[in-house]
């Protein structure tokens, strides 16, 4: 993996150029109570931000909420995001971000477990053998009514494995079009398996920009790519 300049991160922390994010993956039924408690806690201390709030933070350089922001992010496109997480989010009036490996959604039901195992999509024991593991496109469209939909490549791929035009189509351009077609809205962001950000793979960087993704989420950075006038996000204070 490419090495990074740690001083950049130290400077960002000192400057308060940070955003809190909580990453979720599997939300199987057995984890529902814990998920609800977790989200209740988050909602108490933070504003759980959607796309408009993130855009506004970058655009104005100021956070306008009465509590600091946090993003609640759900990865992998699991069916349990619609069956378990979404009702809890609705109950708590929370807007979340869903990152979807779009090819997973298209995999026939009988092949989804094998696809998940082959593409680093972790499964919990209680769901092995389930009839369906991935969201359907109808569920994605329904999630999009209140949540933010983003791509997580097509096949849950690492940035370093995307090298050919075919790879770019499958992992970057295709997922953008697929989400747009299903939800009527372009994906708000993309993210890669392993959490790499832009900056080290010029071919991928160019494709992500060309496709039109506004944001890239990495393990350590949230990168905005859109060309609207840039203003500096202000430091974010502590929760009250």
């Amino acid at each position: 993996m490419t090495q990074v300049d740690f001083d950049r991160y130290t400077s960002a922390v000192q400057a308060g150029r940070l955003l809190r994010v909580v990453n979720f993956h599997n939300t199987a039924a057995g984890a529902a109570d814990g998920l609800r408690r977790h989200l209740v806690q988050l909602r108490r201390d933070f504003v759980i931000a959607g796309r408009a709030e993130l855009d506004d933070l970058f655009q104005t350089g100021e956070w306008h909420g009465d509590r600091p922001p946090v993003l609640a992010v759900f990865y992998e496109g699991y069916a349990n995001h619609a069956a378990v997480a979404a009702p809890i989010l609705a109950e708590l009036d929370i807007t979340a971000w869903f990152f979807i490996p779009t090819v997973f959604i298209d995999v026939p039901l009988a092949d989804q477990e094998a696809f998940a195992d082959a593409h680093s999509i972790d499964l919990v024991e209680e769901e092995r053998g389930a009839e369906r593991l991935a969201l359907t496109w109808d569920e994605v469209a329904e999630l999009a009514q209140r949540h933010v939909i983003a791509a997580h490549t097509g096949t849950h791929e690492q940035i370093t494995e995307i090298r050919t035009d075919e790879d770019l189509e499958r992992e970057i351009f295709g997922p953008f079009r697929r989400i747009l077609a299903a939800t009527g809205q372009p994906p708000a962001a993309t993210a890669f398996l392993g959490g790499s950000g832009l900056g080290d793979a010029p071919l991928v960087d160019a494709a992500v920009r060309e496709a039109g993704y506004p944001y890239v989420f990495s393990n350590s950075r949230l990168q905005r790519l859109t060309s609207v006038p840039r203003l500096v996000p202000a430091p974010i204070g502590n929760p009250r």
Partner: protein
Amino acid sequence: MSDAGAAQQPGADLRAEADLGPVTSALARLKRDREGVAMFLVLEDLATDGEPAAETGPELDGPALAQLTAQYGRQLMQTGEPTERQVAGVLEVLAALHFNGASR
């Protein structure tokens, strides 16, 4: 939310945890529950030729956060420039400490 950290105030929490030791040890302690992992993401605006946003001064958790970042950074850099994943580990530790302090 992770169960790391035990102090009452975010700043004090971070200072108290400044002796956690190697990042890997701290992470191992934090990863007992992998779901709902708190992270800090550094904000970068690449809309203008990849230039980073200008700095605006420390506010988030104050000097303790920056001090702990630098401390972990020194540990990481003992073996050379860190990878993004290693840096993410540092941010994950910081976030866990921050969230636990902040949520009390």
